[in-house]
């Protein structure tokens, strides 16, 4: 049984998605989806333990030996990403139960869970597979289900947002498949490790750099790297709360993982960073993203959209870490994958609580909520402080490593920018805090009826808040895993 864990990680949610579509009433579909997400989480934990103890796992699908068959290959890097994705899934799905009933038409709810599980399948699949075409297949699964999830938002804008995302996402997927095709045409293989071996001899050809360029642009679209980010704010803002919390915490993270996998395992660090000068391409984009998106976030009146822009800035931090190309830089980037997933999911879930009771997430809707929804707002404040990077939260750990990596290069102005943008994060989080704690509540009857969100929403939110603090106080585990992942990617022996 345990030998088949790698394939179960993907097959269980895939099968379950189909079953879920047939389940009625909505509550049953929900309970089923929760059960699946927990199973998936347990598998991810077992896989990470196995990888940490015994090294890389290679699993041949259907017994076909690699490189002919499809290989699932799990090392520290993707075991960690699997854990991130499945953790967020396992926390968000229990939360979705009550939240979704408020935001989605009743007859569509089982379909929501189907799409959710498919999205989970796709993201896990991209992460676990060692086959580049398989990456593309799972990418399509996750993308299509994400468009559906976004389109289920209750406002009309959700449809345009989903359509825009569909167009941009398809362009990105096309670029990726073209890149993969080019690689196949010169090497005749789709297996990542095999590609890595063969490509090192073929770098002089014209095809390989072209494939590299197509893949870079395609993946950058998926991870919403500036200036390819325009689809993201509306998609996040209009999707149902539970979907936003899940997608924001996982989808871009998996895209970052794809970036890492292609650049380091397939093309190799030498080709990516020395021949193609990837660092010089990513660095300025990351810096512009960090600064400009933080600035835009400050002026948003819709809090969900504000957090969406904040996500774009945070993706900038992750890309910054990667663009440095050193062990510390990669450690910082991978660490922030986890840390940002935890803080952003917590923040979006707190927003979901507000939507549940108040029905709006414009900044005025927060007036007086500090008194009326104390636990929700406390969760928002703690997760917000984590986003700013206050000590004893995970955000601080990320900032610490990122600045250390930047200082190793002697890039003072970049370190200053990272710190300055932390202050900008403080400003936009603070606007919400001030509205919640210092503005008196509106006096009409609707506002008077607002009370604390139900426990079914609060408990999952607070679990993530506790994670934010726990791994901020004791980051030994995450730092160790991220460090080992960085070393594995760069091929540095321990």
């Amino acid at each position, binding site marked *: 049984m345990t030998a088949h864990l790698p394939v179960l990680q993907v097959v269980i949610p895939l099968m379950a998605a189909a079953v879920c579509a047939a389940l009625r009433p909505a509550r049953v579909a929900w309970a089923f989806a929760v059960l699946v997400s927990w199973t998936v989480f347990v598998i991810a934990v077992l896989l990470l333990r196995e990888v940490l103890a015994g090294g890389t796992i290679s699993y041949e699908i259907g017994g076909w030996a690699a490189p002919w068959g499809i290989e699932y290959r799990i090392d520290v890097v993707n075991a960690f990403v699997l854990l991130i994705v499945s953790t967020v899934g396992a926390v968000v799905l229990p939360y979705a139960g009550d939240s979704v009933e408020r935001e989605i038409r009743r007859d569509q709810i089982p379909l929501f869970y189907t799409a959710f599980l498919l999205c989970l399948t796709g993201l896990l699949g991209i992460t676990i597979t060692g086959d580049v075409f398989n990456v593309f297949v799972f990418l399509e699964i996750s993308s299509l289900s994400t468009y559906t999830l976004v389109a289920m938002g209750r406002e009309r804008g959700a449809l345009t947002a989903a359509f825009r995302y569909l167009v941009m996402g398809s362009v990105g997927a096309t670029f990726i498949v073209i890149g993969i095709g080019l690689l196949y045409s010169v090497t005749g293989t789709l297996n990542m490790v095999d590609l890595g071996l063969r490509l090192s001899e073929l770098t002089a050809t014209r095809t390989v750099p072209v494939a590299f360029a197509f893949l870079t642009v395609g993946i950058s679209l998926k991870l919403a790297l500036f200036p390819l980010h325009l689809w993201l704010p509306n998609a996040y803002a209009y999707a149902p709360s539970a979907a936003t919390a899940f997608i924001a915490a996982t989808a871009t993270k998996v895209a970052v993982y794809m970036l890492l996998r292609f650049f380091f395992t397939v093309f190799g660090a030498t080709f990516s960073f020395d021949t193609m000068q990837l660092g010089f391409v990513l660095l300025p984009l990351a810096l512009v993203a960090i600064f400009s998106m933080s600035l835009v976030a400050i002026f948003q009146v819709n809090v969900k959209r504000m957090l969406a822009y904040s996500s774009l800035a945070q993706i900038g931090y992750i890309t910054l870490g990667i663009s440095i190309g050193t062990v510390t830089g990669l450690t910082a980037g991978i660490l922030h994958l986890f840390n940002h997933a935890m803080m952003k999911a917590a923040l979006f879930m707190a927003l979901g609580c507000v939507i549940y009771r108040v029905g709006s997430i414009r900044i005025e809707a927060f007036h007086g909520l500090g008194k009326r929804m104390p636990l929700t707002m406390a969760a928002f404040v703690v997760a917000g*402080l984590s986003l*700013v*990077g*206050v*000590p*004893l939260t995970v955000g601080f*750990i990320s*900032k*610490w490593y990122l*600045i*250390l990596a930047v*200082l*190793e290069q002697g890039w003072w102005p970049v*370190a*200053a920018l990272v*710190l*300055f943008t*932390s*202050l900008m994060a*403080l400003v936009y989080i*603070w606007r919400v805090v*001030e509205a919640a704690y*210092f503005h008196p509540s509106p006096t009409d009857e609707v506002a008077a009826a607002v009370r604390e969100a139900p426990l079914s929403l609060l408990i999952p939110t607070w679990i993530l808040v506790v994670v934010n603090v726990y791994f*901020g*106080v*004791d*980051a*030994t585990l995450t*730092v*160790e895993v991220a460090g080992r992942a960085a070393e594995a990617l760069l091929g540095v022996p321990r």
Partner: protein
Amino acid sequence: MSPVTAVVLAIVVPLVGAVAIGLMGEERANLRETATLVSAAIVFGLVLTLTPQIAGGARPELVLGEPLPGLPIAFEVEPLGLIFSLVASSLWIVTSIYSIGYMRGHHEENQTRFYIFFAIAISAVMGVAFAGNLFTLFVFYEVLTLSTFPLVTHHGTEAAKRGGRVYLGLLLATSIFLFLPAVIWTWYVAGTLDFVPGGILDGVLSPAAATILLGLFVFGIGKAAVMPVHRWLPAAMVAPTPVSALLHAVAVVKAGVFAILKISVYIFGTTFLQDVGASQIFAYVAGATILLASLVAFTKDNLKARLAYSTIGQLSYIVLGAMLANSYGIVGGAMHIVMHAFGKITLFFGAGAILVAAHRTQVSQLDGIGRMMPVTMAAFLIGALSITGLPPTGGTWSKWYLALGTLEAGEPILLAVLMLSSLLNIGYLLVIPARAFFAPADPELLAHPVREAPMPILIAMVITASVSIGLFFFPDPLFDLVRMVVES
């Protein structure tokens, strides 16, 4: 009890107290106040049990956890930290007595929240005092900023919000933008952040880099209120008076100057600072702050604002002592932490007493009030004497050593600054009790005579004023502790 247990308990007991206060709530106000007083007494008792051991040379250490590899949350008690914790914990008791009188006499709202955050702030102060490395100190420094914010904005008015924004904005901005990079830079060049006698930076930093790093610390530790990062302190005066008294005359601001002292002694090391001459320029910045703050204080008619600017000047005495980087300077600075604490808290208590009893906030309204509130104004006089540095108060000694420090450093200009500052203090501080006792009374005051402040307030003031006098006659125990810092 082992010293390590005492250290942990001193940090945990205020938190337990905070929970107890929350459980009692507004309905059982007397029990709630008991919870505050009991926790305060326990913390002070714990710190007292540590005193003889530290004086005997023990340095209890403890590692709580390791957030980042090689960077533990660790505690180590040494004389400087012990002094700071003694001051903060003893004054917590006194301030609690005072708060009870003040908050009730003034019919403040949300008193439970007030006492809860007060207790959390004290816990953070203990963490700062006992921090065993720079990282731990930074963490508790930030906790202190965040936990005092609800106290500053306690009234919830537009003015409180404005003040709170400046307070939090400036303190967080300086700490994230300057203090944190300084910490990371130190870690990067030294490979450790432990507080080590003699410092950890000797030989790994060029003189120019040392000067820049020291600058990041001096201005990044915004709580020390060296100009131009002092604006948060006057802004924080919108808080209820007990907050201004304990936090913004003692705990918060002293956490700032304490951090600067610790960094000079245990991160840079005074010898290293002297060798590379990194600190001289900041000694002059502190000197300028002393004079400018005193001049601004003259222009303030609001009593609390005047005291705030006086505090800014007095904090720079301690920064000056640290930046002189010789034993006299360090001794003077460390002693001034104590002397200024008792002096200034007396003054703030007085300001609060006048507000509660007479509803007056402006200095110009106080003519003749001393004859109606003799105890209050007598205590105020003693506080003012100590701040000015005149006998028979403890402030005399710290100023004495600071003056010696300037001479040893060969800085006659800074000596002149200290003396001029004393004169200015007489001009803007001592004049207040003088006019209160001897000037002809305000006609309005004659029409509506006022009485002395409530008893708890008077008790608190008399205690702190007596300690100020006591420190003049018996400075030896304090001096012996401080001497251990410079001799190690």
